[in-house]
C-alpha cells in the first residue's frame, strides 16, 4: 500500500510542471473536459488534500474513481500517474470513504463466490465441457491455463476460452486448468483500492500455484495477465506469466499453425492491460497480419484509447463508460474495417454493447482461420 504522503514530492513535481500533456490521451478527460478528472487535476487534488486545503469531498471521490486506470497519462510523463490514482483510491477507503455501492457489490461477490459476477464456483467448469482438459493436480503439469473469472462464467465469452484451449492443444502444449478451484486474480480488488484484501488474495493464489507445481501460467485475460505477472514479480515467485497471444503468435510465426487469411478488412484494439500496461503490442499484430487484411486505428499501440470498461468505471459510471465505448467504435469504423478484433473479455463485452461493429475475439478468429485450412 502506498501512502499518499510518500507521493508528495511527485505531486509537487506535477504541480510545478503543470504541462497538462496527460490530458490529450485521457479518454475520460477528453469526454468530460473537467480538469479535476484529468491526471494533472487529480495530482493537484491529491496535493491539496495532503496540504489540508480542503477535506475529502464528493468531487475528490469522483476524481479518484472516474478513471479506467488505462495508463495513457503515464505515456507522456515520468511520474507513475496510474499508481497515484490507485493510491488515492486506497487513501480514500482508508480515510472513511465507503466503497462505491457498485464496487461493494463486486467485492462481496469475490468474497463469496471467488468471482466478481455472483456466479457459483461451479460455473467455471462450463466453458471446458467436451474439451478433455485435465484438472491441475500437484506435480502433474508445468503449464496452467488460467481462464479468468469473466470469460469463465459469462456465456458469450466462453467460446474465446475454448478457442484458446483448442489452439494450445493444436500447438502441442500440455496444460491443465483449475476448473472451479481457479481463484480470482484480484485485479478488481487491486484497482478499486482494496489493498489489504488484494495482498492476501495474491499471496494465497501463489501458494496454490506453488502447491500445484506450476511453472508457467498462460491466461486469456489481459487483466489477469498484468495482475498475476506483477504479483509474481512482487512476491519473488519463479512462475512465468504470459498472455495467450504471446504463447500462440510464435506458432503462427514459425508456420506451425496453418491459417487461411481472410480478405475482410479488420482492425485491432489494444486492451490497456495487455498493451500499454503489459507491454504486449507485437504478438497480437502478428496474428492479425496472418489472418486478416489488417489496418491500424488512428490511435493504436501505446496510444490506443481505452474502451471504458476498466477499473470499475463500467459498473460505477455506466453512462460515461458507454460514451468511451462509442468513441472507440467510431474510431474503429473510421478505418473502413468491418470487424474489430481484440483479446480481452472486458473490452469485448464493452465494445459489443455498442451497435455498429462486429467485435471478435482474437483467438476465436485465429481458430476459425486454422479450421478453414484443416476443414
Amino acid at each position, binding site marked *: 500500500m502506498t501512502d499518499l504522503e510518500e507521493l508528495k514530492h511527485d505531486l509537487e513535481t506535477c504541480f510545478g*510542471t503543470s504541462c497538462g500533456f496527460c490530458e490529450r490521451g485521457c479518454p475520460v478527460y477528453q469526454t468530460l473536459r*473537467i480538469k479535476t478528472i484529468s491526471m494533472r487535476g487529480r495530482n493537484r487534488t491529491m496535493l*491539496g488534500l495532503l496540504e489540508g486545503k*480542503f477535506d475529502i469531498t464528493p*468531487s475528490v471521490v469522483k476524481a479518484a474513481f472516474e478513471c479506467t486506470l488505462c495508463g495513457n497519462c503515464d505515456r507522456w*510523463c*515520468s511520474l507513475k500517474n496510474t499508481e497515484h490514482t490507485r493510491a488515492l483510491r486506497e487513501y480514500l477507503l482508508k480515510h472513511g470513504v465507503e466503497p462505491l455501492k457498485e464496487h461493494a457489490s463486486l467485492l462481496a461477490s469475490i468474497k463469496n463466490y471467488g468471482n466478481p459476477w455472483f456466479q457459483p464456483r461451479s460455473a467455471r467448469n462450463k466453458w471446458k465441457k467436451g474439451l478433455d482438459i485435465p484438472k491441475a493436480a500437484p506435480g502433474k503439469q508445468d503449464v496452467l491455463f488460467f481462464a479468468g473469472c469473466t470469460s469463465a462464467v459469462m456465456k458469450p465469452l466462453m467460446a474465446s476460452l475454448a478457442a484458446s484451449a483448442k489452439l494450445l492443444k493444436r500447438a502441442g502444449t500440455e496444460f491443465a486448468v483449475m476448473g472451479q478451484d481457479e481463484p480470482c486474480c484480484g485485479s478488481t480488488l487491486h484497482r478499486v483500492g482494496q489493498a489489504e484484501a488484494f495482498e492476501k488474495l495474491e499471496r494465497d493464489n501463489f501458494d496454490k500455484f506453488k502447491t500445484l507445481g506450476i511453472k508457467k501460467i498462460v491466461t486469456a485475460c489481459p487483466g489477469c495477465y498484468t495482475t498475476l505477472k506483477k504479483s509474481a514479480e512482487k512476491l519473488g515467485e519463479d512462475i512465468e506469466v504470459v498472455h495467450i497471444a504471446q504463447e500462440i503468435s510464435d506458432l503462427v510465426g514459425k508456420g506451425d499453425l496453418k491459417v487461411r487469411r481472410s480478405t475482410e478488412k479488420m482492425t485491432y484494439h489494444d486492451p490497456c492491460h495487455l498493451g500499454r500496461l503489459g507491454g504486449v503490442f507485437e504478438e497480437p499484430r502478428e496474428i492479425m497480419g496472418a489472418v486478416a487484411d489488417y489496418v491500424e486505428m488512428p490511435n493504436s499501440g501505446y496510444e490506443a484509447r481505452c474502451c471504458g470498461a476498466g477499473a470499475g468505471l463500467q459498473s460505477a459510471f455506466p453512462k460515461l463508460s458507454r460514451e468511451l465505448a462509442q468513441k472507440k467504435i467510431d474510431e474503429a469504423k473510421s478505418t473502413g474495417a468491418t470487424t474489430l478484433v481484440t483479446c480481452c473479455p472486458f473490452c469485448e463485452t464493452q465494445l459489443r454493447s455498442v451497435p455498429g461493429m462486429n467485435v471478435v475475439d482474437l483467438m476465436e478468429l485465429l481458430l476459425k482461420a486454422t479450421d478453414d485450412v484443416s476443414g
Partner: protein
Amino acid sequence: MAFIDELVSAIGEEKVLTDPAELYVYGADWSPRTPDEVRPPEVVVLPDTTRDIQRIVNIAYAHGVPVTAGGGLTGMLGGAVPLFGGIYIDTTTMRSIVEVDPKNQTLRVQAGATLQEVNDAVNPYGLWLPHQPESKWVSTVGAAIACDNDSTFGVRYGKILNCLLSAEIVTGTGEVLELGHRKAHFTSSGYKLKDLLAGSEGTLGVITEATLKLEPIPETRMVDMIVFHRMGSAVDFLSRILKAGLCIEAAHINCKHRLKFYTHAYKDKHGKDPDIPSWAEALLAIAFAGDKDIVKEQRDHAIDIAAEFEAELVKEREIVDSWWASKYTLEFEPFKQKWPDSQGTKKFGAADPGVPVGRLEEFYHKFIEVAGKHDLEIIGMNAYLEHPNSIGFSLSCAVFVDYRSADEVKRFRMFHDELSKLALEFDGTMSTFMSDSDQKAPYLELEHGPSLRYMMEIKKLFDPKGIMNPGKKFPREAEGK
C-alpha cells in the same frame, strides 16, 4: 451566493462546479509559483456555446463579479489564473469545429479547441495551422490569441495574429461582437479591433470562436543546426540569407547553455551532453520546408553562406533530431525526459523581453549577469524568429526555479521584472510571448507611457465594470475597482 444560484439556473447544474476540491484545480497554471500560491476561483463554469458564455457574463455584470476565462492553463505568467476569485470560465468545453473551408483555406472553430485538435481536423485536407507553440497539445485557440504565445514557425507564418481572420467575443457587458474581416486575409477598413485581442489576456472579453487562416502542408522539411562564435553572428547570418531570397520556415538561436535543455533524448541515449565545439556560443536551428528540390537547394545555399560567418554545420544528426523532436514533434522516447524529470526539483521559468535585432549579443550578457545577481541557475537564452520573413525575434531568458521555495520564486520574479525593464533601456519591449499578466501590471506605464491611459479607456469601453480578468495588465485599483 446569489450569482452562483443564477449561474445554475442559467446554464444548468452540471456545468457549474463549486466543490472546493474542484476549484483548487483551476487555481494555477504553468508559471512558477509555490503550492501555497494557488488562487482558486469561487465557481468554475463549463460552457458549451457562446450563448452560455453570454449568460454567464450577464450574471457577472449584474453582480460585479470577476470573470477569468482560461484554456489549457499552460500560461507561463499566470494570465488565466484568477486573482480575485469570481467566475472561472473553462473554455475547453467549447471545442467544436464549426467549419472547414478547404477551398478558401480557412477554419471556423470554437475557442476551446486545442491547437493540436485544429490540426487533427484540417490535416485530412492537406492543410495546417502553423501557429505551433510547444504546448500545442493543451494550448487552446482562444488562449493562443489572448496570451499571444510563441510559435515554432513564426519566421515564415508569424504568430496567431497572422493566422487570425476574425474572432467572436463576449464583451464585459455580455454583448456578442465579431471582430475581423470574415475570410478576407486583411482589410484597410475601420480600426483593427481584432488585433486588440492578441495579448488581451481576457481583459476585453471572452473569445468564443475564431476564423483562422490555414496553410498547405509542405511536402518536405529539412532541419539543421549551425554553430556560431557569437549570438550576434547568427543574427547576421539570418539577415544575410533573407537577403539572398531564402524562405526560412523556422529559426531558433540557442545559447550554448540552452541546447542542453532541449537534448535530453540525446543525453539519455549516450549518457552525455552533445559534443559541440568549445568555441561555439550560439546554435542556430534552422528549417526549410516545401517541395523537395527547392528545400534542398535553399538548405545547401544557406550552408554555403554559413561559411562566410565562420560557422559550422552540426554533422551529428541525433543532436539535431533530438532538439527538433523536443521543440516540435514532441514524439521522442522517453518524452518524460523533458518535463518532470528535468523539473523534479526545479522548474523552467523565463522572462520574455524583446530587443532590437542588433543588440542580441549585448542583452544575452545582461541576462547572464542578472540571473547570477538573483542567484538563479541558468537554463539559457533562446531567440525565436517570430515575424514573417524578418529577423525579429522573441527572447526566452530561462532559469530554473525551485517552486517549493518562496524565496526563490520571489527572486525569479525580481529577475523577470529586471530583465523586462532592462529591455526598455535597450529600446525594446517587455514582452514578446507571455503578455503582461499581473506580473508586469505595476510597471506597464514604463513601456507605454501616456498611451496606457488610452488602453485603459479602450478597456473601459469593452468592460465598463472592470470585471474581465481584473488585475491583469492594469492594477485593479487603476481600473477603479
